[in-house]
């Protein structure tokens, strides 16, 4: 990935070379545009994990961002300027996230940052980004606090969060499976926040919490919890277990054949975490923001573009993590174009309240960037393992699609206090 590793000096060299070349036969389709505004490229920092717990999701996220950037460059760039990207490994470690963000902004002169899976890393990056006023697209971190108490003027959150998924699942599942619920909760912030929304919804719709089992982060053996679940014998188990813990849990539930009785509600399943696994690993009902076989216009063509761009990737079809990375980057670039400037405040204003048609996002309902919380309010799908897959990629069966209003995280409105425009440093990237 030579292009993503430019140093400043190397960059000067390449742009100079590109400028010289474009006279004869430039590498870009619209040389004319380049000749006019060839001052400097727009630099975007990709802050995704390449090592640690989220290395795999980080890679998928990154592919989404890069495809959006390549497509924009193929159309002549943005504002007539070429877009360049740099990636640095955030290591699934918040402290590294801070350092990477500082380097991206102060040394690599990135005007925009894109990418996140882990909420700790996303928080670290967004603090630095806010300090410098650099717009940051949180692509894939789904902690409710991201658009709640940890929201920022420069940060936009593109994934559905734990509350959205709980709202999509709870009422439906009480009707279908029964009232007695057991919560299996990862004992950390994301787990507790997700469990809290599930509790609130159960109270609202007449379900009851039989018990809550807290499992520490880093749990690899769930046998004790699974025995306790059998002894408690609830109608539904609502699991808010994330990361590698979730992968171990899936495997162990599958082995016990406990995936159908009791009924399981798994908050969210990221595509890179499940791709290629046997279908019985996908037990219960879970949320997602997108699926590659949604019967909607543009989806099939999007999948083809993915396959053309990444012929060697083992993941043969795009998933939700790729989708979020792609959409966030594409909409960022479109917002810059609409703003007619790279001024950060102008671009932020373009993004706030932005309505995106269902067609353009390849989802069932229209979506909007919430001006109050900066979270994308979008369609949330509930899915389960596909009983009749057409091929090995076809792992999900989509059960329901909830419109954004039905799953809105209303608690975030009061929790989120965005910094004022005046308190956000302004600059032109």
């Amino acid at each position, binding site marked *: 990935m030579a292009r993503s*590793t430019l140093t400043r000096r190397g960059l000067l060299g390449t742009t100079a070379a590109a400028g010289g070349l474009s006279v004869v036969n430039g590498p870009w389709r619209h040389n004319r545009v380049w000749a006019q505004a060839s001052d400097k490229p727009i630099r975007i920092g990709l802050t995704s994990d390449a090592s640690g717990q989220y290395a795999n999701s980080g890679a998928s996220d990154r592919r989404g961002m890069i495809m959006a950037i390549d497509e924009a460059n193929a159309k002549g760039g943005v504002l007539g300027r070429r877009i360049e990207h740099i990636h640095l490994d955030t290591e699934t470690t918040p*402290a590294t996230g801070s350092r990477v963000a*500082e*380097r991206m902004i102060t040394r690599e002169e990135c005007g925009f940052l894109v990418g996140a899976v882990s909420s700790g890393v996303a928080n*670290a990056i967004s*603090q630095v980004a806010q300090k410098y006023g650099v717009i940051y697209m949180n692509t894939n971190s789904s902690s409710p606090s991201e658009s709640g108490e940890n929201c920022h003027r420069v940060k936009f959150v593109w994934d559905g969060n734990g509350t959205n998924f709980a709202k999509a699942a709870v009422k439906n599942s009480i009707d279908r499976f029964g009232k007695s619920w057991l919560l299996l909760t990862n004992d950390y912030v994301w787990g507790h926040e997700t469990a809290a929304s599930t509790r609130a919804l159960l109270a609202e719709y007449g379900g009851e919490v039989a018990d809550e089992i807290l499992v520490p982060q880093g749990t690899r053996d769930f046998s004790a919890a699974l025995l306790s679940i059998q002894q408690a014998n609830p109608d539904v188990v609502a699991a808010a277990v994330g990361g590698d813990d979730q992968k171990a849990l899936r495997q162990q539930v599958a082995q016990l054949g406990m995936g159908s009785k009791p009924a399981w509600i798994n908050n969210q399943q990221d595509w890179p975490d499940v791709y290629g696994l046997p279908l019985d690993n996908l037990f219960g009902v879970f949320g997602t923001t997108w699926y590659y076989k949604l019967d909607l216009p543009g989806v099939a063509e999007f999948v083809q573009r993915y396959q053309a761009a990444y012929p060697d990737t083992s993941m043969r079809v795009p998933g939700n993590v790729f989708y979020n990375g792609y959409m966030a980057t594409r909409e960022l670039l479109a917002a810059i174009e609409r703003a007619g400037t790279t001024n950060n405040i102008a671009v932020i204003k373009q993004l706030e309240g932005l309505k995106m048609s269902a067609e353009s996002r390849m989802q069932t309902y229209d979506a909007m960037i919430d001006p109050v919380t900066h979270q994308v309010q979008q369609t949330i799908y509930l899915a389960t393992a596909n009983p009749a897959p057409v091929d090995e990629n076809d792992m999900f069966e989509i059960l329901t699609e909830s419109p954004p209003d039905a799953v809105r995280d209303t608690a975030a409105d009061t929790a989120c206090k965005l910094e004022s425009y005046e308190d956000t440093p302004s600059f032109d990237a």
Partner: protein
Amino acid sequence: MITLSDLPAKGGSPLTWPMGIFLLGLATAPFWLGPIGLYQYLGIEIAIWILYAMGFNLLFGYMGLHSFGHGAYLGVGAYAFGLFQLHVATSLWGGLLAAVLAATLAGALVGLFLAHRRGIYFALLTIAFGQVFWFSAIKLHAVTGGEDGLLGIPRPPLELGFARIDLNDNAAFYWFVAALVALVVPLLWRLVNAPFGRVLQAIRQNELRARFVGYEVWRFKWATFTLSAATAGLAGGLFAMAQESAYPDVMSLHQSGLIVMMVLVGGGLVSFWGPVLGVILYFIARDVLGGLTETWLLWYGLMFVVMVMVRPEGLAGLVHVLRPGKGRAR
């Protein structure tokens, strides 16, 4: 092989040549970091970790007590600084004092338990305590913010009576950190070259003999552990300022292991200056390799492997070989 105890005690003034070079480098860094392709924030992290590593090596290199859970005290310092700013008062000195005191207290308590332990059992217990601190930081999320971190920690201005300096700018904050490092490092130098330092080395070489000579060994162990925890706490407070947040990860076994690796790779076992070299190599190699290739961990790991195969004593060992007159075994 040379060890720290083979180095002649210098006594007297800490103003030696290496100290001069170190202070000069520290003082001028903001002027050359940019031109050589680095950036100001990296300088801040390096300076903070030098502080941490130097305090750590008092325990690790001089005393020979191998702590693998030292990140805990860095973390305690960072959280103490943050909680002080968020719940007590926005105050630079108050926060740093809280960081040092909290880490000292934590170190002193754990030290009481550890002071009677030796070798690998000492090391394994430090891991257990380190994990308990780390685990607590995640579990007590009402206080610490859990894995989301303790966010929005301010960088309070430096009040000097006659002037008020804003530290939000990275260059200004760097000078402040550098000033503290320039204060603490000569103090540590004095300490290891004073009788106290000789006792530490005597204990490392032969604990039994030191005991027979009449030293209450466990008190020295306890004091050193506490002192190095206090330094880690100061570094932690500064780290919280640098990041404007505190995260549990710095307390994890992996991160605690990193400081050990830095000290070893720099040659902390053979030289006072080893930790400085190790921290610089560690951060710069990581930053440069990380910018060059996605498989940077491969090259990074190979660097450690080759280092041990070619020059186990670390970078400082190399210096001693190049200047054989300076510290050969007597």
